[in-house]
């Protein structure tokens, strides 16, 4: 169990590197590693409890992603219109 839990923990961390949310993570781990979503969700919640600040910051950052996308789009747009 320990090892398994550790694996799930590791996998979740990798998903976080990809800026995934909990649901996306559950989905991905189930699809790619055959881990029951309920297990992923439980480990995620426990990790969240244990690393509260991190997850708070993480969520805030994730909220900004749409605005980042928009900004990126705008910049690209601007660049494409620029002629030198």
């Amino acid at each position, binding site marked *: *169990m*320990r*090892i*398994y*839990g*550790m*694996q799930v*923990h*590791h*996998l979740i*961390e*990798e*998903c*976080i*590197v*990809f*800026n*995934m949310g909990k649901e996306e993570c559950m989905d*991905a*781990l189930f699809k*790619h*590693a*055959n881990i*029951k979503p*309920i*297990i992923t969700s*439980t*480990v995620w*919640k*426990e*990790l969240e*409890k*244990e*690393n509260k*600040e*991190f997850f708070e*910051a993480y969520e*805030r*950052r994730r909220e*900004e*992603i749409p605005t*980042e*996308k928009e900004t990126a789009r705008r910049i690209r747009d601007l660049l494409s219109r620029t002629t030198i």
Partner: protein
Amino acid sequence: MLALSPASNSTGDDCNGESEFLATSCGFSIEPEEEFPDFADHGDLLDIIDFDDLFGVAGDVLPDLEIDPDILAGDFSDHMNASSTVTTTSSSSEKTDGQGETNNKGVSGKGEEVVSKRDDGETAVAETVNYNGDSDRKRKYPSSGSSRNNRITNNEGKRKVKVDWTPELHRRFVEAVEQLGVEKAVPSRILELMGVHCLTRHNVASHLQKYRSHRKHLLAREAEAANWTRKRHIYGLDCTGANNINGRNKNGWLAPAPTIGFPPPPPVAVAPPPVHHHHFRPLHVWGHPTVDQSVMPHVWPKHLPPPSTAMASPPFWVSDSPYWPRVHNGTTPYLPTVASRFRAPPVAGIPQALPPHHLVYKPDHGFGGARAPVDLHPSKESVDAAIGDVLTRPWLPLPLGLKPPAVDGVMTELHRQGVSEVPPTASCA
């Protein structure tokens, strides 16, 4: 690994004296699964000592067929001629058992045909015997001719074939397992994939079992290492740049990192493309950091994962991990790989890397992940590769180094949710 115990155990009653002697001379005692050889005053210790027990668990080894024919060719003439002599001499010299049943633990290759044939005085058997025994013997010690045959021919009735898991053999084994998937690997399929004829399914099965158990130990060590490195990052390291919150790459060094967000590739002759390949390559052989830089295929019992310096208090997951071999020799090829990975987080994943106005965030918690340019839409392949990487290379450090939750908490939560069996699928996770 081996069933060794500190010089105390002697299973054979009829050879206490000898075993003690052995224990003193060799520093350990041997726990053979069969009756201990009945030693006479031979002084032929090399023959007496059951090296197969030293180097492998009985029952899962076979003589290495590739080498044997040569040995056989050399030996045969001697043995064939001496077979009858062997038989006689063995019965007289070989310890007391008339059937040659008990002793001959000193010889590795055991085959029942040997015993029976010896009785018959068949030369054919002597061949087999020599073949079985000498294959290993010859490689390790010069054959002492008939005396060696004695041991061999005096084999027990039980079949005890030993496989010498050479690095090459093990590499093929690992390849096959990787291909099938560690948890799904079935000995019969592994055997097919390996295409080695001298292995029985049983050999592969027991080797697989050991391999899996070894992997678990590595997982444990990795977790501990990750925790340790995380702490290191927090307390010792300077931020030389990393991706800030907006995803801009402040550190040119990170630029080559793949967009899947992994630390820079290992230093040994690696450019970004190999790393990409690395992540996308499903057949990565456990035990070889990358194909390019594989220095020598480690036979896994000797293999030690790179984070040999991990010393932090073990995270909850691994508090019961007993396995702690540490190797600081520079020969392990993993060090470069891991070193690079460890190096990356310090540079890239420091709490200070994140603009303070963005995150109110205590450094204690060590946001240690290297952030490549934010991949807002991680591709399926990269996710798959990352996940596969975790499963196949469990020694890799955790990218973030989050504090692991208490196992009990997780377990109770799981039970609350109605999950009874964890892990649900794996038989040995």
